[in-house]
């Protein structure tokens, strides 16, 4: 499946990164002790120079990309917002929350009172300062106009935001949420000045808008007033490619300097084209996960779910469908979270055992199931094909139905017995809040487990790291034992660059090439 009308589905997942739940502030330090896959990021050898036009090919621009950050719901919109606007916090190069416009985000005595202190000297592109009033206005605008973040941050009370001084303001939340700083990483809560209108998109991001051709290309010029220092590139162009091959061809033909998120099978194509290009691949927490709907046959039976998980050969999925560019998953999310349960034994493919489980449970094989999926990435179909084939060995007869995203999210949504989703780039709690706990809004598995929910409720209130880690390990053990997701693979971010560029890095908890941080990339002199 090529191209990006098929990627339409993918861009819709971005709002899932709108974080809302409790966060452990204390967990800011440390990186995952074990990377799921060997990193092969070449470090940037030379210092970037100022100047030049940086052309980036992405496969996700669409006419639905909003310029109003609060309305961003697409991958392209996310990429654009990252240039024009800035958030209070973000996921850094280690995958942890770091500060951006905020100098600090501190809880009070309880997790329902937060004090945000702004960085000194940040200004919007029109020269007005990024001050406490602007931040308050940003939130009030969202709630007054009932913009989408208002429903994803129900704990924020816009009336209870107090401007203390120019750089300080306090939030009194409706309920305690220690994940508040993480929620602020979402581009939908980018800070905008008073009097903001998307027709004149003024923000405090590294770039300012030059021209926008919706769905085709968007051009920016460097924001000379950017608080983080003027971006290296004078101009930035994001160019849309419907076809993954065309994107790589454009790189080889010198029409772009960077191809963001290329298809793994195209890596050899870039490599074959000579030494003027580098492929930068790093592991991320992103995944294409299969969702077993426990309200539907046959996955209402935990044995069947267990059997399907056993049927999957994760290594083979990565080797065959992703050309080796990925890391093995263990049916639990968020490998970059410090509390990720590394003691769980890696599940190995054992189709014979899976078959035996099913037969012992009295099933007549094969079990017929329909797998419904939109082509979420250029290689999602390939993963599904290999998956179907592996499952067949264990006694599943899976029919793979590929539909476009509008169909996928249409009337049938929620009724598919087996489906696929693009998830990740989140911490364990975020992921749980979105997709696992009781009443999680986006839980396509409909799976619900009281024990798990109790553990979650405890963990989210537990300040002590070690204690909370223990609770989280128990949560993941439950997911591992009887959950309804098949988290078999984690995706690599694969970006191809011209060797004329330098300054790129890893952003394991952020989608998009270089986490859409194009201001740090510049031309080698």
């Amino acid at each position, binding site marked *: 499946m090529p191209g990006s009308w098929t990627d339409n589905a993918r861009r819709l997942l971005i709002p899932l990164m709108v974080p809302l739940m409790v966060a452990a502030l204390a967990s800011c330090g440390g990186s995952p002790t074990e990377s799921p896959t060997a990193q092969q990021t070449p470090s940037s050898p030379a210092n970037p120079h100022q100047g030049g036009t940086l052309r980036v090919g992405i496969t996700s621009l669409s*006419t*639905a990309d909003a310029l109003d950050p609060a309305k961003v719901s697409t991958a392209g919109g996310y990429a654009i917002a990252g240039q024009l606007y800035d958030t209070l916090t973000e996921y850094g190069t280690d995958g942890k929350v770091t500060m951006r416009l905020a100098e600090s985000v501190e809880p009070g005595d309880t997790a329902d009172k937060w004090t945000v202190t702004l960085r000194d000297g940040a200004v919007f592109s029109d020269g007005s300062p990024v001050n406490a009033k602007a931040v308050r206005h940003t939130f009030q605008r969202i709630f007054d106009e009932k913009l989408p973040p208002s*429903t*994803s941050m129900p704990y924020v009370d816009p009336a209870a935001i107090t401007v203390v001084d120019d750089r300080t303001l306090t939030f009194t939340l409706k309920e305690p949420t220690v994940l508040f700083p993480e929620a602020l990483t979402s581009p939908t809560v980018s800070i905008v000045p008073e009097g903001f209108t998307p027709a004149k998109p003024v923000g405090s991001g590294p770039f300012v808008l030059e021209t926008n051709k919706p*769905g085709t290309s968007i051009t920016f010029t460097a924001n000379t007033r950017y608080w983080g220092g003027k971006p290296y590139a004078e101009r930035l162009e994001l160019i849309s490619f*419907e076809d993954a*091959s*065309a994107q790589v061809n454009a790189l080889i033909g010198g*029409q772009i300097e960077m191809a963001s998120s290329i298809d793994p099978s195209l890596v050899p194509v870039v490599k074959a084209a000579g030494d003027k290009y580098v492929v930068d691949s790093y592991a991320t927490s992103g995944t294409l996960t299969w969702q077993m709907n426990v309200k539907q046959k046959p996955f209402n039976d935990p044995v069947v779910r267990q059997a399907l998980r056993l049927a999957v050969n994760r290594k083979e999925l990565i080797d065959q469908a992703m050309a080796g560019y990925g890391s093995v998953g263990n049916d639990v999310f968020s490998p970059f979270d410090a509390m990720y349960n590394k003691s769980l034994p890696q599940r190995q493919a054992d189709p014979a055992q899976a078959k035996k489980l099913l037969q012992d449970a009295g099933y007549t094989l094969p079990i017929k199931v329909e797998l419904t999926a939109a082509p979420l990435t250029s290689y999602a179909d390939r993963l599904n094909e290999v998956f179907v084939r592996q499952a067949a060995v264990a006694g599943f007869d899976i029919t793979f139905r590929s539909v476009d995203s509008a169909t996928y999210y249409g009337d049938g949504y929620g009724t598919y017995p087996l489906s696929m989703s693009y998830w990740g780039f989140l911490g364990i709690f975020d992921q749980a809040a979105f997709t696992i706990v009781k009443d999680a*809004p986006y839980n396509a598995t409909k799976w619900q487990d009281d024990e798990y929910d109790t553990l979650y409720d405890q963990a989210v209130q537990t300040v002590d790291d070690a204690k909370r880690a223990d609770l989280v390990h128990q949560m993941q053990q439950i997911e591992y034992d009887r959950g309804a997701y098949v988290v078999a693979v984690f995706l690599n971010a694969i970006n191809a660059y011209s060797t004329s560029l330098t300054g790129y890095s890893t952003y394991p908890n952020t989608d998009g090439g270089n986490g859409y941080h194009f201001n740090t990339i510049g031309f080698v002199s």
Partner: protein
Amino acid sequence: MLKEKTTRGRARTRREASTGWPARLVLRRLITAAAILLVVSLVVFFLTQALPGDVVHQILGQTATDEQIARLRAELGLDRPLVAQYLDWFSGILRLDFGTSLTSGTPVADLVGDRMAATLVLVAVTAAILLPVAFTLGTLAARRPGGVLDHLVSGAATVLLSLPEFVVGILLVLLLATNIWPVLPPTSVVSGNQRVWDDPRLMVLPVLTLVLTAMPYLTESVKTAVRDELASDHIRWARLSGIGERRILLRHALPNAVGPSLQVSAMTLTYLLGGTVTIEVVFAYPGLGSALVSAVADRDVTVVQGIVMVVAALSLLLYLLVDLLGALAAPRSKGRAG
């Protein structure tokens, strides 16, 4: 049989009636075209409505809450009855207002304008190369049926006819842009406000691909038409009257062969107008076809409608033009045109 009944008297009335023929023909055809466009808009509107999922699901995706869905529906006016939506859209069309894109909120005309221009330029440049080359090759091949050129044209036609456009495109990229002999840009991406025709190099590969894929059928058609014409009685008589071969070809045979060949040309160009999607994807060419496919995927009905109306209108115009040209080249066809 009918032609034998042409008496002097009838010939005269027919001739007199025919003095006003271009205007009448054009008028009649325009009325038919308007009716066809109306049907096209109805068919496309309701077919698009029949698709599973809608634009609101597409915009909001799985994060949508019922309230958001309802609000966006109302905002976009999708909560009104279908007929009202259609009539609203249609009354806009009558004022040449194509409405606004449901996904982006920008006027369809703005969104589609640039892409239409890009497609028109692509088709026009392709036609400017395709038509003369196909007509020349076809005519030359027709002069010697069974000759080397005849076989070459047929052979090349069969091979090219069986290659999907995108395969030709990809092969050309490999050959001329990336791997073998990289002299041309592999894609047609443009920066900022640049138009794709500002840098003619960007158009070479897409045009070449289209010319190569559209050539076989057209050349074959021209060849057949000219060959049949060259075998006709009046050409034999012209030869027996000592008229030179070149003159026979250009003045006696071609004008008669042009009519049917133009029909095929119009068919080909119509196909290119709405059917260059795969080429646009291969070359990241910013044209109408890929916009159409995206709009269908997004269920952006107004954009789908806008593009289809433009393509259909252009196609109808093309057919009208071709019929007029054909009638001018071979006057007998005007007798049949009615």
